[in-house]
């Protein structure tokens, strides 16, 4: 967080948005925009684009590792919990089973594995995606709302204060059908 004690009022980032006619056109445009050196870009589409990850140059997702960590925690946590509660802290003889009865502990161990893995996937995903996010500058543009329905948009995040002319020119040169420039609103 920067100190807001600057001379001028703080300015939000500028976003240049361009709508393309199809998913393929968007993916192509994505490659070309990155060739020009813009890396802070994103695609917005109603469904995942074919080849979209490569076009944005994204590396492998962290989600599997998060899931594995959650699953292992659930597995060992669940099993050790039962060993402690039924085996060590309050040994209880039920039907002659030993206090530490591995076969009887399997079902719950499985369930806690799945539970913790799933919870970590879900909340891990939300953390990675930084959702819920009540405000994002791209929604300043009313046309952009087609992005989750039938539009294929490319957004370029530019440093605060830039007018976005170069970026708009680039997008229109790449064949964007609609272009709008929005500025992030700060408090």
């Amino acid at each position, binding site marked *: 967080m920067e100190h807001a004690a600057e001379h001028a009022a703080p300015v939000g980032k500028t976003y240049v948005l361009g709508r393309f006619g199809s*998913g393929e056109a968007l993916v192509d445009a*994505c490659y070309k925009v990155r060739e020009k050196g813009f890396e802070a870009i*994103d*695609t*917005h*589409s*109603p*469904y*995942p*684009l074919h080849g*979209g*990850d490569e*076009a*944005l140059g*994204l590396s492998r*997702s962290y*989600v*599997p590792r998060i899931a594995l960590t959650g699953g292992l925690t659930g597995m060992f946590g669940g099993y050790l919990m*039962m060993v402690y*509660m*039924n085996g060590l*802290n*309050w040994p*209880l003889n*039920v*039907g002659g*089973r030993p206090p530490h*009865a591995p076969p*009887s*502990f399997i*079902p*719950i161990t*499985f*369930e*806690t594995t*799945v*539970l913790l*893995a*799933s*919870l970590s*996937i*879900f909340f*891990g*995903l*939300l953390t990675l*995606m930084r*959702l*819920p*996010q*009540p405000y*994002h500058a*791209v*929604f300043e543009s009313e046309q952009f*709302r*087609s*992005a*989750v*329905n*039938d539009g294929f*948009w490319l957004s370029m995040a530019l440093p605060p204060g830039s007018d976005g002319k170069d970026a708009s020119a680039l997008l229109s040169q790449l064949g964007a059908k609609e272009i709008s420039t929005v500025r992030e609103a700060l408090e």
Partner: protein
Amino acid sequence: MAAEHAAAVAADALETEPLLVGKQDNTTLTNNLLAHVWARPDKGWLLSFLIALSGSGALVLAITVTLVEGIGAWGNNIPVGWAFDITNFVWWIGIGHAGTLISAILFLFQQRWRTAINRFSEAMTIFAVMCAGLFPLLHTGRPWFAYFMFPYPSTLNMWPQFKSPLIWDVFAVSTYFTVSVLFWYLGLIPDLASLRDASKSTLQRKIYGIFALGWRGSGRHWHNYKVGYLLLAGLSTPLVVSVHTIVSFDFAVSLIPGWHTTIFPPYFVAGAVFSGFAMVMSWMVPARHFLGLKHVITMRHLENMNKIILATGMLVSYGYLMEHFIAWYSGNQFEWFVFFNRATGPYRGVYYLMLFCNVLTPQIFWFKKARTSIPVMFIASILVNIGMWCERFVIIVTSLHRDFLPAAWDMYYPTWVDITLFLGTIGFFSTCFLLFLKFIPAVAVSEVKELNEELQHRPAPVTVVTGA
């Protein structure tokens, strides 16, 4: 006739019924799949909702009576300690399983026909598990102490007894419910965003906006989202099998003749899928008609579901056959008596109804005419639901009511509270389901768009080889 048949084969050698009818694009799909959310509820919906709501009211009444009077208000007795309550529990849990099967297992197998029906059946899973959970909760007798079953550090120095299948059940059902809700909601986020941005009023935009969490279809989000969704599907698949396996352990781990069988886990899982698909069918047939979804939920979907009903029906029938054979082959007189008693004892009516509904009814789906006939599949699905309820009743009550000592034998008759509780959960389920159909897209819109894109851009035979 023969020539006509030959022509049909020539024309349709590889082509099956389409998964999406008509030429669609993203705009038309957005409009027609969300249309029923924007439309004012019609009279039919209001009337069904009113009936369902009164069912929910009856449920509240029956729960109140149960809480005030205790479970003595039910027909349970000694020896029949488990009756309607556990029957309903197993029945509802089983119904939920189709949702997970469709959404997770068919997803892993990349069955494209799953796309139009997954949202629908996942919602069913959640509501069915809610109904299911109610019964064991009430059956504890003092549901306000139900938290004793969870491992929390209490001053009573009391831990759950983890060697009991009933505690396994607590973990299995609560995990199943949690994971189903997460999976459903995760799949719903893009569609909630779609609703937000297609909405016409500010209020709608705000409400759907809150639940959409600020989703903006970002490629960086999709990147993680796809992986997360796939992994959740991968986890749900063994989970669904484990849940009904553990439910069957409630019986199989005991020493009661008729329950103590190794075939129970697979036999229960098959039965669960069987009844679940039947329930999906019973709801889908009217819903696709009234919500105008016939172009996305096509005859191909219905026919495939009927094939699964047939296959799982055969598995269930095999289960019956094996159960009876082993009862005879074991030479154990108590085991054999239970099965003899099922077919000739006082509850034989329920037994024969079960055989009729579960063994005979699905056989009609050997015929394509029946598989593609709406009235036939609707009636068959209702019969299968009835049959599967009877199966659980037969397993539970007939195994208990004539135990080892004839002096202890007794009959079980449901009281009005039992019956109201059961019908009440059907009402509650329907209430939830009708609300779901009104406020949330019944079809996974974003997935259907993706499917549409795939179907248009890649001609089928080539993609099978080179695609994935």
